[in-house]
């Protein structure tokens, strides 16, 4: 039991390190406001976690620090210029409503970050989907001007991506800070997979599913461009690493996790073609939670019947 707990903490440290690397990258693009935004998220989540655990008479342990990684994931899905009060409400929602009401980390049902993101999306859509250009630095208390739509929105509506491959890799394009840092996301994915911190099956299923459909039903004239742009837009890579492959949510066995990721990718792609909605994969990932739970129940039943057989 002690060993399992320790490994949970190591997973958290690994995920935190990759998130902090993305955070540093964002500091260069958007300035101090990104850091303050993440700080607000982390602080509010931490306080909400302590208060809610206290209310249900549970002790706060190092394993409960996952609330901070969830908070950083939330902050990296948002524009740097978003109102701090909105993210504070979203973090409280993530910790209390999405996580601790269901029993906290021992009984995770939804990804707190994904559910909190959708909550913000349906309550403050304009604030969540309007961004400043990269290299435009906004002060902590300043109100941002000249907000623009994300590169994903332009791609979804026009099928065009007006950025060079180098800009895409470096994250020098309009959009949520964390979601556009493609090179860092690839490096993070490799590290987290090698260290077995995320579900490889779910990650592979999501990437393969998106690439497969983008190739079969291309959104651009070139199939290669279709695959490339689909993978780097709409938070696909970010969601594949930090939300869909979250080991607390995804099916345990890679075989089932692959199909879980694949189905999410398939639904997201088709819905994206139909609705042109930005970052739809996050919505679909929450909607597929019952599927993941069903897979997990199925795995348990198989394990049980195997042990009974022995």
């Amino acid at each position, binding site marked *: 039991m002690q060993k399992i707990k320790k490994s949970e903490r190591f997973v958290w440290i690994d995920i935190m390190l990759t998130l902090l690397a993305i955070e540093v990258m964002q500091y260069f693009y958007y300035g101090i406001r990104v850091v303050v935004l993440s700080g607000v998220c982390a602080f509010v989540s931490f306080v909400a976690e302590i208060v809610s655990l206290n209310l249900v008479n549970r002790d706060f342990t190092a394993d409960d620090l996952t609330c901070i990684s969830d908070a950083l994931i939330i902050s990296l899905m948002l524009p740097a210029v978003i109102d701090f009060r909105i993210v504070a409400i979203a973090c409280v929602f993530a910790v209390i409503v999405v996580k601790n*009401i*269901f029993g906290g980390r*021992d009984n995770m049902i939804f990804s707190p970050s994904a559910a909190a993101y*959708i909550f913000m999306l*349906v309550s403050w859509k304009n604030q969540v989907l309007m961004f400043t250009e990269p290299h435009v630095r906004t002060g902590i208390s300043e109100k941002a001007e000249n907000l623009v739509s994300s590169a994903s929105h332009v791609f979804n509506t026009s099928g065009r991506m007006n950025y060079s491959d180098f800009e895409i890799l470096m994250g020098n394009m309009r959009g949520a800070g964390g979601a556009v840092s493609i090179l860092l996301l690839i490096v993070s994915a490799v590290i987290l997979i090698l260290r077995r911190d995320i579900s490889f099956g779910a990650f592979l299923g999501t990437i393969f599913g998106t690439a497969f459909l983008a190739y079969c039903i291309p959104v651009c004239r070139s199939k290669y461009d279709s695959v490339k742009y689909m993978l780097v837009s709409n938070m696909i890579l970010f969601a594949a690493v930090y939300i869909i492959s979250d080991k607390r949510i995804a099916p345990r066995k890679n075989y089932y996790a692959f199909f879980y990721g694949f189905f999410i990718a398939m639904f997201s792609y*088709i819905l994206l073609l139909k609705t042109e909605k930005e970052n739809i994969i996050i919505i679909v990932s929450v909607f597929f939670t*019952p599927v993941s739970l069903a897979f997990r129940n199925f795995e348990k039943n198989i394990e049980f019947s195997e042990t009974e057989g022995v």
Partner: protein
Amino acid sequence: MFIIDGIILLLTSNLILTQALGTSTLFIAAESRKKLLGTALTITFFTTAGSAAAYFINNLMTEKFKNLTLLFYTLTIGLLYMIILILLYFTGKEKFRDIRKYVHISAFNCAVMGTLFTVTETAKFYPERNNINDFMLSGLQAGAGFLITAFILTAAYKRLTSSDVPASFRGFPAMLVYLGIISMAVYALK
């Protein structure tokens, strides 16, 4: 593609997730998988047959008597309720004892009556859908939607009622929040 379209349609027009119709019935039925399936199938029968009857009632009734709509719908569901119970009784007493509880739960509730009113409202907005086929299809769709929501709830049922959930939220409150988050995702999909 066709299957995915169908699932998306069932989700976005789901009466429980979008209009909270039949939530109480879902919670009563969620106690066991057998009960849930039985209730879902019986509700599907009521919504489909009831919608067909609603089509005829709507077309026979003049605007002057519109306040009697509820009474006629209630009588229709009551008639269906009696017919299904009589049929079950003559099929076999044991079967009757097993199945009648699903019929009792399924007859008079918001899921069934709500479907009849929703189908009627839709036909008012889209006159091209004012035909028996569309009415029955909508009734069937409402039943299938109940079945999907039943699956969604069953998948998490053990976790929502487990001892890990704080005592004050265990069971129904956790189920409401769970359905709320799924409903939020459906709302965002629209």
